[in-house]
């Protein structure tokens, strides 16, 4: 009964978990961002579900219509969608620059490159120290 009447909330939970799992488990940066988007979208659906009133119509002044959905959460989520788009755009821009700088968008490759750089810098310092 709970499952059927609140099915949208179950979808929210499922999407939220899928999104978070993708952010954590995926090594590809673009896939991470897709996961982040799914995670954010689940929250949008959550807000929209909260605003729905059973049997209510659109919140427009109509003759005879007295019951309507709460428009406030819907308006709030418009703002959150804009924020989500800005985040995605910024993240993709960063990914392009990461690709140019590291030659890869796989987390593993980037971390390996970091360690290489750290190690070679360390060797350079050690050998410089020996010469003195």
């Amino acid at each position, binding site marked *: 009964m709970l499952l059927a009447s609140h099915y949208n909330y179950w979808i929210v939970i499922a999407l939220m978990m899928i999104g978070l799992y993708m*952010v954590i488990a995926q090594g590809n940066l673009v896939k991470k961002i897709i996961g982040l988007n799914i995670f954010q979208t689940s929250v949008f659906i959550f807000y929209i579900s909260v605003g729905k009133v059973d049997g209510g119509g659109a919140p427009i002044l109509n003759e005879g219509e007295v019951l309507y959905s709460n428009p406030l*959460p819907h308006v709030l989520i418009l703002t959150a969608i804009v*924020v989500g788009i800005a985040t995605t755009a910024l993240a993709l821009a*960063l990914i392009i620059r990461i690709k140019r700088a590291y030659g890869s968008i796989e987390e593993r490759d980037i971390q390996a490159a*970091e360690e290489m750089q750290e190690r070679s810098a360390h060797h350079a310092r050690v050998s410089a120290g020996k010469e003195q």
Partner: protein
Amino acid sequence: MLAHLPILQVILPLMAAPSCLLIRKANLVWLFTLAVSFAALIVSVLLLQQVYATGPISYTLGGWQAPWGIEYRIDLLNAWVLFIVTALSTVVLTAAHTSVQKELEPNRQTVFYTLYLLCFAGLLGIVATGDAFNVFVFLEISSLSTYALIALGKDRRALWAAFQYLIMGTIGATFILIGIGFLYMMTGTLNMADLAARIPPLSESTTVLAAFAFIFLGICLKLALFPLHLWLPNAYSCAPSIVTAFLAATATKVALYLLLRFTFTVFGVDFSLSHLPLDILLVGLGLVGVFAASIVAIYQANIKRMLAFSSVAQIGYMVVGIGIGTATALQATLLHMFNHALMKGGLFLALAGLVYQLGACRIEQFRGLGRTMPWTMAAIVVGGISLIGMPLTVGFVSKWYLIAAAIEQQLWWVAVLVVLGSLLAVAYIWKLVEAAYFQAPEVDAVKEAPLGILLPTWLLIAANIYFGIDTRLPVEVTSAASQFLLGGAAQ
């Protein structure tokens, strides 16, 4: 004019940010940004005076009355934080011209100041607003500009650090959004004062508990509280020096303010600290953070990174104060917010001077700096002493209050651990002193940092000593603010 101060505080930098793009010339943009930041400082001083004299100010945006429209509510707590943010931003900006010119390419300098002002506006907005959803919006304004600011760093690692912070920061902000959604579901309001009135009867509801958990976790991610701090060291060490100084002095303080605002004002002290075992959690995590981060800091070769870990440790002290939750402990936290901003602002500006001359700041480069860059090194030493918490510096004042608060509550072990944690700070500061004063210089030709950076650095370092001796202003304000926080929660 005076009646509109709360909104002016936020709208001024917000409108100034896009104007930077019209001015274009880097020198003029810098002057403009500095002027805007200084104007914001004046506004915040006026607000602080007004609130201290007459009590909280409520400002309704566009004339829409409070629970329906967005309300800006300035009380002693956020007036104090607004003052810290604007004051530190103004000092940091005076040094920005010299440092940014050296570290950023000419075509990126205008963009830098635009992003800086956006971030500044976002931080001020978080603090000034009395509306829970508005907090989320401003949080994202400041976060998005912060990611871009970090990515301006020279090294390619800056990109990776910015990306990691973006992922963590977005998850944190979305958690806060979920929490606010739950609260709206239960109470039908987004106004903080209204929420505070409606939550107590619902304190047994699991939805409210879930809301609290999401908001708390989201804020702790932004705050970089110990196990959630992983983004901070990379972000601080890769960002341009000015950005590091600005973020270290202001951004963590604003996150801490949010934690205080939600735990004490919105949910109320009875709910957060008595109903939930949050006191043990905060004291525990805070102390573990102090030790873990300080020990890691000792082993860092990159000094920016070392001080970043030290920031994580200092956040630990502030959180311990919230966890103890008495008036004295809260006062210690509020004092340490101000004092830590002075210390880290000064220290990171000194490092900016170092980066200006040496291009980087690794421990090997500190050899002999006591002779080649005496003023910069002296600033680092005084800042370090303040970080350790020796008498006659601000660090001593806040640690003193924190230890007094712990002893008041018979928490002797907390007091002992706070002192031991300070000893760890001695270890990493000593490493710098040893390299700078007891080892021969690698290169003799290193010159002292330019005055443009040195003067603001010493302004902050001098403030460390001044407020360590003449403690009247911060102590009076924080004492009143902490009593207000607890009194406001008891009603």
